[in-house]
């Protein structure tokens, strides 16, 4: 990987152009998660907590192998388990490593009101800059994957960084490093897509998974984390992976048409009132004109 991966291409709530945008060509990176070879060992969960030096988070037992119900501000990487009974009565153990998807069109970044609190690097990594985070939680609402998590103590929001610190140094993310089965891969988005497609074809042709496919949802412009699924037609089975994720419509309406309408209305309103005053003046102008030195008092 290139050393220059922390060059920025998108900045949250930034007025004006983005410094250094398009000055350097760089390929997008991606993490490939092959759910069909995941054994649910949770080495990636531990590696994530270790590398990112996250404080202890108590686990909750719910009669499955899952560590806790959902990711937390200090637990960015969580394998979701689902015992799925197929139509023929056979059982499938579905395991999906869940973390930030690093969307090409990130809803968190779109919703964020704080300049530079969320950035997207030229390599596609979406990263939170907690020093600029104001803790409003708009990113929580903007995210279609339920990833950003609020810390009540620091009043900031946290999530997976795709180990941007490691990636800039030419290393793969910590989770990839720890995976014992090789179900996790890291590389350029193009390479990972090629690998994923080949694996999906293998599953279709040789393993009897007729609906095997790659999850790279176009609704968010594609993601920096892609999955190979046994059944790409039912991603919901994998711990509620949304079938067709989008930045919520209300967020897009708010940040798009409403912002324009609101700005035009506010500026137009002020101009309109000023012009009204120029044209008609105050209401007791007649008195003033009759008795210029006495005003409206009787």
């Amino acid at each position: 990987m290139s050393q220059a991966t922390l060059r920025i291409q998108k900045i949250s709530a930034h007025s004006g152009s983005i410094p250094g945008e398009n000055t350097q060509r760089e390929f997008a990176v991606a993490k490939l998660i092959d759910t069909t070879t995941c054994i649910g060992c949770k080495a990636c969960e531990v590696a994530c907590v270790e590398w990112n030096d996250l404080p202890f988070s108590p686990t909750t037992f719910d009669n499955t192998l899952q560590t806790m119900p959902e990711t937390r501000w200090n637990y960015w990487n969580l394998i979701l388990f689902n015992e799925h009974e197929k139509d023929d009565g056979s059982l499938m153990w579905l395991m999906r490593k869940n973390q930030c998807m690093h969307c090409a069109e990130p809803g968190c970044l779109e919703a964020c009101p704080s300049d530079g609190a969320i950035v997207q690097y030229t390599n596609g990594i979406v990263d939170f800059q907690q020093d600029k985070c104001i803790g409003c939680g708009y990113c929580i609402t903007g995210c279609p994957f339920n990833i950003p998590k609020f810390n009540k103590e620091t009043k900031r929001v946290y999530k997976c960084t795709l180990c941007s610190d490691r990636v800039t140094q030419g290393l793969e993310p910590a989770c990839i490093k720890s995976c014992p089965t090789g179900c996790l891969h890291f590389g350029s988005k193009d390479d990972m897509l090629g690998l994923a497609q080949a694996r999906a074809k293998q599953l279709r042709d040789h393993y009897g998974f007729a609906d095997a496919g790659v999850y790279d949802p176009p609704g968010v412009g594609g993601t920096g984390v892609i999955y190979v699924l046994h059944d790409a037609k039912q991603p919901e089975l994998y711990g509620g992976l949304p079938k067709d994720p989008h930045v919520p419509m209300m967020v897009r309406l708010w940040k798009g048409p409403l912002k324009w309408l609101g700005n035009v209305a506010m500026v137009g309103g002020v101009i309109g009132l000023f012009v009204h005053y120029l044209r008609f003046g105050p209401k007791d102008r007649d008195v003033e004109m009759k008795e210029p030195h006495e005003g409206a008092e009787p």
Partner: protein
Amino acid sequence: MSAHADQILPHGRVLRYPFVERANHWIAAFSYIYLLLTGLAFWSPALFWLAAVLGGGQLSRTLHPWVGLFFFYAVMRMYGYWAPQMRATAVDEQWWKSIGNYIQNEDDKMPPAGRYNAGQKALFWSFFYAAILLLLTGMVLWFPEWIPWNLRWVRYISVFLHPVTALFTIANFLIHIYMSVFAERGAFGSVIRGDVSLEFAKRYHPGWYEEITSRSANPRK
């Protein structure tokens, strides 16, 4: 003993707003202005510097909801003071039909408004209902992490409705400032010192003028 509302004062003046109503108005006004400035900072990247001027984005995010509670409290107090006088009357319909005359400062052609004209009543009810809506949506935005994932639509609605309602209040706010500071001279003083001239009452609120002058010996309260 302090003066009561509608009391005729010496030198041809009448008390329009007693102290508590004036004080409450300024609680609402100052809290609204803070909410407006910090809200605009969150609204547009081009205005985010407002948050920096007011002590930083984090502080603005922390205080905005608390100040919002003050604003809501003040608006509810206003409801207590003024709601009975803000009910629609027959003359209001006539007033809206003559809005063109009102805009062109032809006040002599307006139907006789009472203590409040129909426009002021509309402003009052706009702020009243907007404050409720802003409180409800604002509570969701205050604690987004408390809304479970399967109720996320509540967040989606709030994140849209809060700025829509705020924009609606901004329209009302601009008109309110314009009318009271620039258009109707004497109105601003009434919410500072409390009284207006009888001439003011007669010009802008003929119905009210009739009322207070005809029964000035028997005060309202």
